[in-house]
């Protein structure tokens, strides 16, 4: 019953999306003006219906209704409730339903609150949002119906991959999807502005909070995903340039560029065409990422060719959406002028460089991710991994960091290096000190060396914009910028430190024996079996002492799940201010000894701390912008109110 309700809600939502598209498009013509009033309410209801469908899916998962095929395939009655619920989006159909839900809700939210733009632009925007949504509704209803029934219902479900039965991962996909799909709003705004030829500061100001919000979610999602891979996979790796990871990084790179070019457009009415273009590109990256992850093409091009229904569907959606948007852009680009001019040495100039570098990194990541697929289609299998991505992205990342240090100190329109040279003495000093320290430690590879040194310089440079400012009167967005840039320095420091200074120890020890890793002495006390709701495990009890200080207990586990049967390593982490001890229990070796994997990773938590600082910077900027937008709206309403009263 619940499943049928969900399916009905989904069909209704799709129908309303069609209505929203047609009404929005007709309302732009002179004869259809009467339809204009329909579009916004329809958008809101469409979002709510999608939400209802998603709620229905969560319900059938929560009560493990095994007559629903998706539940039988991906869930199991003996699973903690939280993972039953999270299982709703831990599969293809559910995650696509989450996608359209977020998209519908975002469209509804825009329809409800966005009053800054001229109405025709808003109508075109909402019609654009409906057009993209409609494609994904069709995909769900035709090729991946999440509510399909199974008859007869099996006595028990297949279970959820144990690696996914983790709180961090339960909330990782929704966060990421809020980011991915939040960018659809920027895409629709770009379409709307192209249709009505209204690209200017007002457009950028209206689009910016949506981009910012999506970007915050993406940042948090990527950070959380990286931490999940770090502790859950049991090998201490935090980024592997895996296609799935790249799929989340690409929209982030595009959104970061868009955020900065939006700033230029809002403040200086420059970079018009470029900003619109990035709006299209950012969401296109989200869609390409979804195609890569959801079509199965990553496992093998051949597997994709054998069962191409879903993949081809998404590919067609991609072609229609991206191709259509780019065609529209091509038709209108000539009428969208670049806007105000500026000198190379200026705030705008620095932001243009930032945009170019981010786009280049995006190009590297996109090409490097797709190339193995191209090669496989041509009949040869190649792998592209960290040895390619690290140096190639560094080519553009390093100059970008230099620009990042200088840019915020420059004035808009025109400036000179002579003016800011004195201020740069401090960061330069930090860089030199960094070089001296790292050389003293010795034996650090090129990229980590660059990372450590640049992080030192950037950490100092990032707070310089606050100098000579009255801190109490500094607007929130400036604090946000400073915090986000400082966060980049922090994360970079963590990454470089991890790859330069990590110590690894693989040993086989008997209980009672002590081993050393870096500054730690670790004693294996006992190994005992323990049981959880749907797993059993061997748990090691270890006593870890830092430089022979007080001992702390660590309990890593080697878990065996039985639905589906799979082994996972639950690592145990011990965090200090200067790093993290990472312990994994391996198998039993011969003669009663136990395999242990131990790492001491100096300053590794800085990676994720930096990521969170970057996101927090975004939150401050968003809060500041929203507050001033609300103030401006209230003031406008007051003036309008006075005028009408005086008119009487």
């Amino acid at each position, binding site marked *: 019953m619940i499943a049928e309700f969900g399916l009905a809600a989904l069909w209704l939502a799709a129908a309303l999306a069609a209505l929203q598209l047609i009404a929005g498009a007709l309302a732009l013509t002179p004869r259809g003006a009467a339809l204009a009033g329909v579009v916004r309410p329809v958008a809101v209801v469409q979002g709510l219906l999608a939400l209802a469908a998603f709620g229905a899916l969560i319900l059938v998962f929560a009560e493990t209704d095994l007559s629903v095929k998706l539940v039988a395939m991906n869930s199991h009655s003996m699973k903690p409730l939280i993972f039953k619920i999270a299982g709703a989006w831990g599969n293809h159909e559910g995650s696509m339903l989450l996608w359209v839900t977020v998209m519908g809700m975002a469209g509804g939210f825009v329809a409800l609150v966005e009053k800054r733009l001229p109405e025709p632009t808003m109508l075109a925007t909402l019609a654009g949002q409906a057009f993209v949504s409609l494609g994904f509704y069709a995909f769900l209803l035709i090729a991946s119906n999440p509510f399909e029934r199974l008859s007869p219902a099996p006595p028990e479900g297949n279970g959820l991959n144990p690696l996914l039965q983790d709180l961090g991962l339960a909330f990782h996909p929704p966060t990421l999807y809020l980011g991915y799909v939040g960018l659809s709003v920027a895409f629709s705004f770009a379409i709307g502005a192209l249709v009505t030829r209204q690209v200017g500061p007002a457009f950028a100001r209206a689009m910016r909070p949506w981009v910012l919000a999506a970007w915050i979610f993406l940042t948090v999602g990527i950070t959380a995903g990286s931490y999940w891979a770090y502790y859950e*996979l*049991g*090998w*201490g*790796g935090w980024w*592997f340039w*895996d296609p*799935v990871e790249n799929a989340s990084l690409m929209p982030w790179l595009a959104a970061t560029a868009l955020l900065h070019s939006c700033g230029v457009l809002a403040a200086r009415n420059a970079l018009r065409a470029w900003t619109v273009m990035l709006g299209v590109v950012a969401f296109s990256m989200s869609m390409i990422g979804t195609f890569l992850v959801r079509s199965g093409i*990553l*496992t093998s091009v051949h597997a994709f060719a054998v069962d191409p229904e879903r993949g081809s569907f998404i590919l067609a959606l991609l072609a229609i959406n991206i191709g259509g948007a780019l065609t529209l852009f091509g038709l209108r680009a000539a009428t969208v002028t670049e806007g*105000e*001019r*500026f*000198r*190379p040495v200026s705030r705008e100039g620095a932001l*243009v460089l930032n945009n*170019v570098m981010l786009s*280049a990194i995006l*190009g*590297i990541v996109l*090409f*490097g991710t797709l*190339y193995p697929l191209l*090669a496989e289609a*041509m009949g*040869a*299998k*190649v*792998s*592209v*991994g*960290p*040895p*390619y991505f690290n140096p*190639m992205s560094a*080519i*553009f990342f390093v100059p970008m960091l230099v620009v990042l240090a200088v840019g915020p100190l420059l004035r808009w*329109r025109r400036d000179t290096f002579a003016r800011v040279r004195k201020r740069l003495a401090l960061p330069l000093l930090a860089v030199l000190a960094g070089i001296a320290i790292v050389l003293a430690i010795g034996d650090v590879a090129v990229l980590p060396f660059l990372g450590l040194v640049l992080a030192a310089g950037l950490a100092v440079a990032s707070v310089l914009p606050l100098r000579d400012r009255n801190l109490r009167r500094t607007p929130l967005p400036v604090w946000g910028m400073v915090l986000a840039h400082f966060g980049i320095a922090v994360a970079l420091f963590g990454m470089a430190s991890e790859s330069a200074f990590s110590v*690894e*120890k*693989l040993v*086989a020890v008997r209980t009672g024996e002590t081993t050393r890793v870096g500054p730690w002495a670790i004693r294996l006390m006992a190994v005992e*079996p*323990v*049981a959880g709701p749907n797993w*059993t*495990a*061997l748990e090691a009890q270890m006593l870890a002492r830092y430089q022979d200080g007080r001992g702390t207990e660590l309990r890593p586990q*080697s878990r*065996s799940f*039985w639905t589906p*049967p799979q*082994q996972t*390593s639950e690592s145990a982490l011990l965090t200090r201010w200067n790093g993290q001890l990472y312990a994994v229990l*391996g*198998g*039993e*070796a011969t003669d009663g000894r136990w*395999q242990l*994997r131990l790492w001491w990773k100096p300053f590794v938590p800085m990676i994720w701390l930096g990521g969170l600082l970057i996101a927090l910077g975004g939150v401050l900027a968003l809060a500041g912008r929203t507050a001033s937008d609300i103030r401006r709206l209230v003031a406008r309403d007051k003036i309008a109110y006075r005028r009408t009263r005086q008119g009487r």
Partner: protein
Amino acid sequence: MRRLLALLLFALLAVPLAAQEEQSTAPYAYRQLDDPRQEDAAQALMESLRCLQCQGQSIADSDAPIAGSMRSLVRERIAAGEQPEAIRAWLIERYGDYVSYAPRVTSLTWPLFALPLVLIALAALLLRRRFTRRDGA
């Protein structure tokens, strides 16, 4: 209560069995080389070799038996004094380009290496056009 007992029994019986069949028994799969410099070289190489049975994992971060035997092979050859790149070449000859995460420059992969140059040229062109057109300011 009976269910709990059954669970515990299962725990005691099943886990060691499962643990044994999963682990690689190659001598250097879970053992480091004594010389830290050699171990570092081996580690760097292992991180750039693909585990052929896994999805998107290097042999340095996988519990799959084949990853274990490949780790052992890498460590043994490094200990015997072989250069990392020679070992990579040997593995590529045996398993194909797919095994190495560091693509070689070949007739198939040259676009990967041309791309940064193209991007730099494109960026330079874009910036030049942007800043050398009629200065309207």
